């Protein structure tokens, strides 16, 4: 409990941890998946694993958009941006993500006009500032980010800004959860639902998980107390044999979501028939593309896309880690060939990926402990 005194209401945290130990007992194992990469990052950073009893296992889910993006999509985006009039704009998270021919940052070093933007609206601003250039925004993210891209495209259309386009890689969370549950080697008891995705989609879309798969799901905030309370709520449901959707993050997440955001997404996007996810393969209806009414702002319709496919090395066991069959350190490449500095597999490329989070916190902690034991 390294930071426990700095947390809000440390006494309540200790009480909640006791409650978890009482509810979890010792007879059985509980396997809970946190879907969101932000939760994964927080769990490691806060050392929550040290607070939870050993029979509660947290499995890190697919909710890191940078991690699940196939390498070929990066290569496709960068291939389009080889044209000299194009400015390649993307979030900072994307800049070091390797494509087969290098990362966006490496392409910048070779002369490509690559810009980091904080917001899709800043990418649109770049287009206004550079009328002689074409700004292509490389869009990634789940439903948290997709409405902002949608609204930016609506603004571009309304203003008639034609030197702007979006290379769309937005994905949706529910089909990914379904794909994980469909996998035959999967054994999960419950889900900690994503916080900020749910501010947009609300809690209702998770009801099928509860109803059809008989798995409880609790939408959770990011503070240590939030996540511990969510574990209590899940344990209570599991002990009673229930499977319902509950909202622990009520102070931010409305049950119905954000209707204005959903309207913007519906106006601009439609579902792709299928999309490839790194580590999970092709998942039907799991990603968004621009509607034909936005064809003029769709980089995939405006430019030739090579359609590059790069398969992950066979030795990388990202899929097994994503599904919780293996722990990050049980992968053959973990910490040897595959590190945050030289990521080979999907889950090592972003600090929100489970392998990178595990490497940064657990691995270093273990290394320090063994150093101390030698000294």
């Amino acid at each position, binding site marked *: 409990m390294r930071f426990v005194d700095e947390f809000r209401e440390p006494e309540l945290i200790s009480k909640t941890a006791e409650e978890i130990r009482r509810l979890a007992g010792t007879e059985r194992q509980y396997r809970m998946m946190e879907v969101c990469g932000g939760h994964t990052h927080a769990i490691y950073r*806060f050392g929550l694993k040290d607070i939870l009893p050993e029979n509660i296992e947290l499995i890190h889910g697919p909710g890191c958009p940078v991690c699940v993006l196939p390498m070929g999509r990066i290569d496709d985006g960068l291939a389009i941006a080889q044209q000299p009039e194009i400015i390649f704009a993307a979030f900072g998270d994307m800049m070091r993500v390797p494509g087969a021919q290098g990362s966006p940052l490496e392409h910048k070093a070779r002369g490509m006009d690559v810009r980091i933007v904080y917001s899709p609206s800043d990418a649109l601003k770049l287009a206004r500032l550079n009328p002689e250039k074409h700004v292509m925004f490389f869009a990634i993210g789940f439903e948290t980010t997709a409405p902002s891209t949608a609204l930016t495209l609506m603004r571009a259309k309304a203003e008639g800004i034609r030197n702007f386009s979006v290379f769309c890689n937005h994905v949706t969370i529910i089909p990914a959860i379904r794909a994980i549950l469909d996998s035959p080697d999967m054994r999960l008891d419950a889900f900690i639902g994503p916080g900020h*995705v749910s501010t*947009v989609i609300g809690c209702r879309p998770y009801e099928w998980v509860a109803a059809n798969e008989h798995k409880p799901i609790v939408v959770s905030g990011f503070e240590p107390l939030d996540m511990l309370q969510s574990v209590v709520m899940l344990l209570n449901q599991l002990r009673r044999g229930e499977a319902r959707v509950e909202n622990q993050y009520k102070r931010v997440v409305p049950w119905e979501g954000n209707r204005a955001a959903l309207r913007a997404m519906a106006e601009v996007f439609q579902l792709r028939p299928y999309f490839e996810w790194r580590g999970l393969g092709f998942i039907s209806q799991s990603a968004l593309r621009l509607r034909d009414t936005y064809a003029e702002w769709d980089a995939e319709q405006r430019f030739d896309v090579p359609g590059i496919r790069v398969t992950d090395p066979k030795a990388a066991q990202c899929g097994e880690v994503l599904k919780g069959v293996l722990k990050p350190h049980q992968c053959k490449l973990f910490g040897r060939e595959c590190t945050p500095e030289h990521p080979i597999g999907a889950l090592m490329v972003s600090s929100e990926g489970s392998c990178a989070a595990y490497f940064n916190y657990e691995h270093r902690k273990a290394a320090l402990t063994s150093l101390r034991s030698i000294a």
Partner: protein
Amino acid sequence: MCLAIPGKIVEISSDNQDSALVDIVGVRRKIDLGLLQDDKPVPGDWVLIHVGFAMSKISEQDANDQMNTLRLLGEVEGAVQEVQGYGLEGVQ
């Protein structure tokens, strides 16, 4: 990228009701309010901001708690650098 940052609405643009100036731990920037058009914030309100768009209205207490979480996660510096827009903010 998935962590949102809280900000306080300073003023709504007079020429564009969907644009507001916010204060994020002392840093000011323009954000888009278009995703809150069903429940418009007013100056003094706190909002959770994600990639330059206000995602939801929150209480001042929640804003402080969220900031504390970001601080404990070691994310504040990076987040503030982000909202400054890598040099783009302030350019008209």
